[in-house]
């Protein structure tokens, strides 16, 4: 689809992920229920993409297909020229909650995917990511003693530690309070700008999408189809009160089918 303006992405971006006419249908009471229909889009390397839609429209299903956890009924996902067959450490999914392993410390979680590395390097990497997410001093802490925001940061660090190409986030901030959510968005952007990866972020929060994404994929529901793909061409850091921001946000609200007043 369309290229973004040069503000935030390289001029000639390599294509990272292509979804081709994805369809997913489930059997329910011996009837076939179509959840996703004809989803097609491209994502460039290093892009930050948000997928928005109402709750239950199938966004998470789409993400699971892109991550390889679910096989589509038809269509395919091609990453770096290869079709996706299953989950792979090169593309890690971050869940909304309960994703960290409660029996491992912060260090243990971050180091989870690093067992093949020699010890010194593993420790070095773990330390690097502990610092990146701001959890110094909590290395030996167990997740039950961490706040929700800290646990989500931990998940992200665990994911990044294995150097994936793509990061999928499934409403990763949905379980946090709204103030923590703002902080986490800043953090995520900071991390993304430091270690450039492709990010696909599923959310039902319109503001979140406009604040974070290069492009926003809008899904309808029942079944989910691509309504539109909106380009957010605001320079970062984004002013969330600027007229252009509000304009884009209103456009999205309109897409989703919501009025402008409560």
């Amino acid at each position, binding site marked *: 689809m369309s290229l973004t303006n040069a503000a935030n992405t390289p001029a000639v971006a390599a294509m990272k992920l292509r979804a081709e006419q994805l369809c997913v249908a489930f059997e329910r009471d011996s009837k076939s229920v179509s959840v996703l229909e004809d989803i097609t889009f491209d994502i460039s390397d290093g892009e930050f993409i948000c997928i928005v839609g109402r709750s239950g429209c199938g966004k998470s299903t789409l993400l699971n297909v892109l*991550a390889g*956890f679910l096989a589509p009924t038809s269509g395919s996902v091609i990453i770096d020229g290869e079709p996706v067959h*299953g*989950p*792979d*450490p090169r593309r*890690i*999914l971050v*869940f909304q909650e*309960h*994703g960290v*392993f*409660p*029996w*491992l410390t912060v260090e243990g979680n971050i180091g*989870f*995917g690093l067992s093949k590395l020699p010890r010194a390097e593993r420790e070095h990497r773990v330390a690097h990511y502990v610092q990146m997410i701001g959890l110094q001093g909590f290395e030996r802490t*167990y*997740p*039950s003693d961490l706040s929700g925001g800290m646990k989500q940061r931990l998940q992200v660090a665990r994911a990044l530690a*294995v150097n994936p190409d793509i990061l999928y986030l499934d409403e990763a901030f949905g379980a946090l309070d709204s103030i923590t959510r703002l902080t986490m968005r800043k953090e995520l952007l900071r991390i993304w700008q430091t270690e450039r990866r492709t990010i696909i972020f599923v959310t039902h929060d319109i503001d979140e999408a406009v604040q974070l994404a290069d492009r926003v994929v809008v899904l309808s529901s029942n079944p989910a189809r691509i309504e539109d793909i909106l380009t957010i061409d605001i320079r970062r850091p984004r002013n969330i009160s600027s007229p252009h921001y509000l304009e884009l946000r209103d456009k999205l609200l309109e897409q989703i089918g919501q009025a402008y007043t409560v």
Partner: protein
Amino acid sequence: MNSLSKPRNWEKYFWPVLAAALLFAIWHYCVVWTGTNIFPSPLDVEKGMAELLHKGVLWDDIGDSVRRVAVGFGAAAVTGIPLGLTLGLYPAANQMVNPVLQILRPISPIAWIPIAIILFGVGDRAAVFLIFLGAFFPIVLACVSGVSSVPSIFQRTGRNFGLSSTQLLARVVFPAALPQILIGLRIALGIAWVVVVAAEMIAVESGLGYLVIDSRNSGKRYDLVIAAMLLIGVIGLILDLGFRSLEGLPSVRWGFRHES
């Protein structure tokens, strides 16, 4: 819970001691009042216990009972945990095997005594076999339950990070199921302790259970009977508490709700 004020620290010791003292007093009075010369009073029991300690027989009996439990329980754990984990991971296998387990489980280990005696003769091994039976089923069922209640998120994450099936079992499924497995083990240990006492009454000639029966049969020494019963209770409690302390370890503590 109720509108009374929060209990103070010293009350933690005061009330149980008071209750125990009351119990002893009532017991003592009942014995005196009914004029029985068979049922022992608390003092008789205390003297009986001292007597056992002096004779040195007591430690042998305790040792025998504990040893049998250790072997039987150990065998049940070593065979039951892998089986339970496997059944939990492969629902098809579980579907096949579970009915057999459900039929065997309600058969009291004591009912197996004749079979045990045929297979192992009268003695230690028969008792250990019974304990094994008593502990085996709860352990297997707890493992199955533990594995199937591991949230799918954990397994998906494991696969996402490229773990093979064996690695998944060792590094994700097992630690995630461990709290439930520990509960199953603790319950099984409690059962083992109950079974050993029963088994010793019938199939062997040493141990605390035997002490209970023997004290009655050879001389109506009810003071020793009660003394043995109390010891059984106390040791069983110690075993239980020991296991519960394991539940406080950091790598499993997350699985237990903080009980008030």
